[in-house]
């Protein structure tokens, strides 16, 4: 039996063997209903395209209280309906939003199989929670945020209240993540630590190998250093030390800024 590695999650990459990856460059809702509604008793509407039978993994089919199929009704009329104007609009909004780096897992369309109504319902609740949470944060004594580094096996947490400037933060992060960059040396062909020249290490730590970014309250990924420190600590939700190769989209002057921070 072949051992299969867990496939890293890429947006909408399908795994049909040998097939066209028709969805490869799209991020869209798919056919209305392809996210399949769950059915609960009263979990209400706004189900996008609940009119189309799609993938019902987590919705009720046979075990509903009544089963139309037995009566033979409903198959011929309106089973497939074209996307409503709202659905088409939603689909294009998602298309436009695609290029951002999201802190959420890159979504495979329609997975996990959660009904849109539930998703929307939770999204509204979360927005309210975020407002409360951030208010709570600013009045407490600490401001812990997660810090991830591309390629590192685990994350760290820092208390932003421990720092007064970007430079402080930067040094602290360098110390925290130095162990990972040293092991990175190994992958760059340096055979053991003795051969590590100081200059090579400094290159890795202070060069343009990595870019420091953060996720703000709106869920956008921003370059660290643009706004005053206070404003940054108020809006930073988490930090990510990103490989420069991933930050190709950033403007050249942003890269300069990084270097000056380092």
């Amino acid at each position, binding site marked *: 039996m072949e051992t299969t590695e867990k496939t890293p999650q890429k947006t909408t990459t399908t795994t049909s063997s040998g097939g*066209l990856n028709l969805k490869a460059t799209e991020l869209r809702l798919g056919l209305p209903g392809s996210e399949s509604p769950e059915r609960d008793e*009263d979990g209400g509407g706004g189900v996008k395209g609940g009119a189309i039978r799609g993938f019902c993994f987590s919705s009720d089919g046979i075990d509903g209280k009544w089963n139309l199929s037995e009566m033979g009704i409903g198959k011929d009329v309106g089973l497939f309906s074209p996307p409503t104007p709202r659905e088409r609009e939603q689909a294009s909004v998602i298309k436009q939003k695609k290029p951002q780096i999201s802190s959420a897992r890159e979504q495979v369309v329609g997975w996990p199989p959660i009904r849109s109504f*539930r998703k929307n319902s939770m999204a509204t609740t979360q927005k309210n929670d975020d407002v409360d949470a951030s208010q709570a944060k600013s009045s407490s004594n600490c401001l812990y945020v997660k810090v991830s580094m591309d390629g590192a096996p685990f994350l760290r947490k820092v208390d932003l209240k421990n720092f007064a400037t970007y430079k402080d933060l930067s040094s602290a992060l360098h110390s925290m993540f130095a162990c990972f960059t040293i092991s990175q040396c190994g992958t760059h062909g340096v055979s053991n630590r003795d051969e590590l020249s100081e200059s090579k290490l400094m290159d890795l730590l202070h060069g343009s190998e990595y870019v420091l970014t953060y996720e703000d309250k709106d869920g956008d990924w921003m370059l660290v250093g643009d706004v005053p420190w206070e404003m940054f600590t108020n809006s930073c939700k988490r930090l990510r030390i990103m490989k420069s190769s991933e930050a190709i989209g950033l403007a050249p002057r942003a890269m300069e800024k990084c270097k000056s921070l380092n």
Partner: protein
Amino acid sequence: MAGAYPWLEEIRLKRMVVSDESLEIIAKSFKNFKVLVLSSCEGFTTEGLAAIAANCRNLRELDLRESEVEDLSGRWLSDFPDSYTSLESLNISCLGNEVNLLALERLVSRCPNLKTLRLNRAVPLDRLPNLLRGAPQLAELGTGAYTSEMRPDVFSNLAEAFAGCKQLKTLSGFWDALPSYLPAVYPICSQLTSLNLSYATVQSPDLIKLVSLCEKLQKLWVLDYIEDDGLEILAASCKDLRELRVFPSDPFGLEPNVALTEQGLVSVSEGCPKLQSVLYFCRQMSNAALNTIARNRPNMTRFRLCIIEPRSPDYLTLQPLDDGFGAIVEHCKDLRRLSLSGLLTDRVFEYIGTYGKKLEMLSVAFAGDSDLGLHHVLSGCDNLRKLEIRDCPFGDKALLANAAKLETMRSLWMSSCSVSFGACKVLGQKMPRLNVEVMDESGPPDSRPESSPVEKLYVYRTVAGPRLDMPGFVWTMDDDSALRIS
């Protein structure tokens, strides 16, 4: 229909487009109309509802569950005349806007047989007591938003109103639930048989306090905030539990946000002897756990597991979860419905084909290695009615070899698999009693080579022939071997 069956009393529609005109026709044509259930429907507005309210003197049930209604105004509810008193069941939980609350209160209090009332989110909590007092005979209630400024008088009013509902057995709603208001339902917890907290974003301790009082609970829908600890308490407190659904609070987050693992489900399978229906979203699973669950609960009839990350292996052994799900189908001999997830090879389908003799519905995603997987299922599951598959390497061979099987099933859905356009055509030609529908939004499938896979395939049996009302991205493969595009 109006002409042919003027005495029609009940219409139940699912996933259909219903217009306001249709509702008006229903309202005006059927003098004894009693039941309208529109489940996941769309295309109508509150104007259509107004027509129903104004004209259906004998209406008993109006249930709009999960429909998408264009909510123009809450005024429609006032169109029920004052003389109308026959309402028994009302489900408006899908409506976005506030209904006329006074009209609602009056309606509720003048209908002595009202047993089911499912409100929408826009009904504020402080209006709930009045509604409850107007219908103390209520058996099923869906609250509106379950939050309000924390005021002792609002709380005690609410608690008193709940206590007055001696017949209340089913509770749902709880949007935006504020933990401090949950104790208002404590007086009736011991009589509850069904509780839907799946929109209540409250944490485990509050959930535990509530659930541990519900000794008669048969059905619980809840968010994963309940965590393993909460499920352990559930297992200890609710010995009559038959159905459990645990939904994810943060399905798209990168890391787990709650301490909910396979252990929670194992606890419930151990503690609840009547557990037969499970829907469980989690982030890790093991073959050992599935094995334990299977052996604990051979009476399981519906088992749906969604491990959030596709192709997740057994987190302890890093092996596929074939054996675990194999144990489920082997021990749960009455299993009718199964949804799979995690890392799975063709072997799990071999188990399913061998043991899943009563299986009626199977959902598969990101699983299997080859056509053999599909073949095992189609050739082995004698009672299979509905099969839905996405993102699996299943292709033409298994499908065509088992074409006859498809006529014994209600439907087959395959998306993002490896079924070629050519095979779909062959299937359509060979099987005139099947509708073989190909959905492809990137253009007509015959604009690409015959060997290229179709996006989505839907096959179902029919005595009525191909449909003529399909939108442009759906094509029927029929026996003329020419595409008919509608």
